[in-house]
């Protein structure tokens, strides 16, 4: 007993001393806000910038921005919420707009309502609507996923096309151009991940439809826009002008390495495109191609996300104040993240800033931000519902059959059958 005490006393004393001093440090210094998000070139970098701005005026608050893959963020969040342990969760989390209602509805009380603190009248209404449940607004609107077509001017020139030829085209024309690019420039037109329905969603929303009706019921079998999107992607793949990829990094790698001539996706990809300085001046941006059906437009959306504060967070008050100070009020912040990262925010007042007027040398001096801003106002509004992941899986499951020539109507019936058991 005596030996035990003698051997351990100094260690115990040291431990007590250490914890006492660390306690003192905590009291005098920092509150740390932990944030989960997923794109190091985009929202991670932007949140670090936002954190730096806030720390300047509030030196007692520091930030820990954690970078996961997007699916990992979603799955960790869902696990943490289901287990009910607050320790496993961050203070602020980024949620893609498609999933917002799913989390709000299936985990009531998990997120802190911000209505009352934040003035939501300054934001794009569609963003506010998708984070509203039972009269309370839960998130801080962040970026828009307004879609555009990024294309390699040099490859298209080699195939005999000028930038004018890329403006306001149809998908059929896109495929024709793709064949020329393949023949003359030796490059694939576009990279397609057969297990990702993103492109299908872009095309479908551009014609004003979604997987769900306004009332949230499934809109599959009679959805002309979905049908046309599936046909279009099937045609692209049948024409063999695409490079098949597996997964996000593989996909992003195709334009970093110059393997494809065009990328059709959300504006948030700008940071990743610009991450290759040697490609400066070679890229152009055009509106996305349109379908040839009623209601078809050249404007659509992919993704876009918003920040949510966890109700269980120990730093809840600081987290809310931080989001409100930077994301709802700091116009200059929005100019910086637009210039550096290509983030088109949803704070309407930010659009009057100088950065939105500027020409970007990376895109050969085009006023790309002005364009994206214009397209944003034309994006057809749809109801994202709460089962996007489920329907995505059902749609992807039918893609190979469509490429092999199964009539799209049959594929739609199969999707409809699968979805009806999945959404309950």
């Amino acid at each position: 007993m005596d030996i035990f005490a003698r051997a351990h006393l100094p260690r115990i004393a040291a431990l007590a001393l250490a914890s006492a001093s660390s306690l003192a440090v905590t009291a005098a210094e920092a509150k740390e806000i932990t944030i989960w998000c997923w794109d190091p070139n985009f929202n991670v970098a932007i949140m670090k910038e936002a954190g730096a701005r806030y720390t300047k005026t509030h030196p007692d608050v520091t930030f820990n921005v954690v970078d996961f893959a997007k699916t990992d963020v979603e799955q960790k969040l869902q696990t943490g919420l289901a287990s009910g342990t607050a320790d496993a969760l961050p203070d602020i989390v980024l949620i893609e707009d498609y999933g917002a209602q799913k989390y709000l509805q299936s985990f009531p009380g998990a997120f802190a309502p911000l209505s009352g603190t934040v003035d939501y009248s300054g934001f794009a209404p569609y963003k506010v609507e998708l984070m509203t449940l039972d009269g309370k607004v839960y998130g801080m609107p962040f970026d828009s996923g307004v879609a555009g077509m990024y294309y390699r001017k040099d490859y298209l020139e080699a195939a005999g096309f000028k930038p004018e030829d890329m403006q306001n085209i149809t998908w059929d024309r896109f495929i024709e151009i793709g064949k020329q690019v393949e023949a003359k420039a030796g490059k694939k037109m576009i990279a397609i991940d057969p297990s990702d329905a993103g492109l299908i969603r872009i095309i479908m929303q551009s014609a004003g439809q979604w997987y769900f009706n306004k009332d949230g019921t499934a809109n599959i079998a009679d959805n002309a826009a979905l049908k046309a999107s599936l046909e279009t992607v099937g045609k692209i793949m049948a024409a063999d002008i695409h490079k098949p990829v597996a997964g996000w990094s593989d996909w992003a790698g195709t334009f970093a390495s110059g393997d494809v001539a065009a990328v059709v996706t959300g504006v948030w990809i700008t940071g990743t495109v610009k991450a290759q300085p040697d490609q400066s001046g070679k890229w152009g941006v055009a509106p996305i191609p349109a379908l040839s059906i009623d209601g078809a437009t050249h404007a659509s959306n992919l993704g876009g996300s918003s920040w949510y504060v966890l109700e269980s967070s120990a730093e809840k008050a600081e987290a809310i104040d931080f989001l409100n100070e930077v994301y709802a009020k700091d116009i200059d912040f929005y100019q910086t993240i637009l210039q550096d990262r290509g983030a088109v925010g949803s704070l309407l007042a930010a659009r009057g800033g100088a950065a939105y007027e500027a020409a970007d040398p990376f895109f050969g001096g085009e006023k790309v931000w002005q364009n994206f801003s214009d397209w944003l106002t034309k994006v057809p509004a749809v109801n994202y519902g709460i089962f996007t992941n489920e329907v995505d899986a059902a749609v992807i499951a039918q893609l190979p059959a469509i490429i092999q020539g199964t009539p799209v109507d049959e594929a739609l019936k199969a999707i409809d059958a699968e979805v009806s058991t999945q959404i309950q």
Partner: protein
Amino acid sequence: MVHARRGGIGRYYDVNGWLFVAPALGLIALFMIYPIVWSLWMSFQSGRGMMMKFAGFANIVRLWNDPVFIKALTNTMTYFVVQVPIMILLALVLASLLNNPRLVGRGLIRTAIFLPCVTSLVAYSVLFKGMFALDGIVNSTLEAIGIISSPIPWLTHPFWAKVLVIIAITWRWTGYNMIFYLAALQNIDRSIYEVARIDGVPAWARFTHITIPLLKPVILFTTVISTIGTLQLFDEVYNLTEGKGGPSNATLTLSLYIYNLTFRYMPSFGYAATVSYVIVILVAMLAFLQFFLARERDR
């Protein structure tokens, strides 16, 4: 006297024994029995996320009508039927080859074949994903030696994705099964083989008529272990397909579907519990089969 001690002291020992195992029993009850019972209760509930309510047999009805579940079940069974025999046979052949005492460097070869099964599941899946990419090392090698003329879409074609998963798990687990056979082969009397050789039995017949029958209990054991492993297959598919079981659900397994139902889709904890009980029942049926076969052998 012995008899007299039994009553008092015997009970005393029993109490002590129970006290010693009580902490372990308590932990097992808390972390194993309670979750098992709770998940059974959950499988009769349905709802979105935390908003669950009792639903009777609704989840079981949903199983019958769920094409994704049927697909996952078919895939899992396909892996089981195709992969387990290939792997068991391969492991048997390798084990009897490496059991040859005249083979030079067999320690090294044994280690090399066993090594995959101590690598991390995630690490090797990620590596396989890179190697089997469209312009990965496997396709470029096959093209260079002229076996194929255009690259095989390992990760993007439903058929090839299944093949890739089978290649991956075979690579990972063959060595593991081989070790069991090697150990069992040490217990077979050399003189049996000598007699067979003297009688002029060819090598292949010695393998099928001596090695395999004498290894039968071990083969049975490894088959059941591999069956359970295949029914619970998750890591490889998750990492190779970014958690989607794609393309076209061609590689979706039951475990991955449970994961998706819980963490990726609108969380349906009740339905996910029901699907996990399907695995429990399948494993139980196959374990029963093992007992049945083992009993027959003893008779």
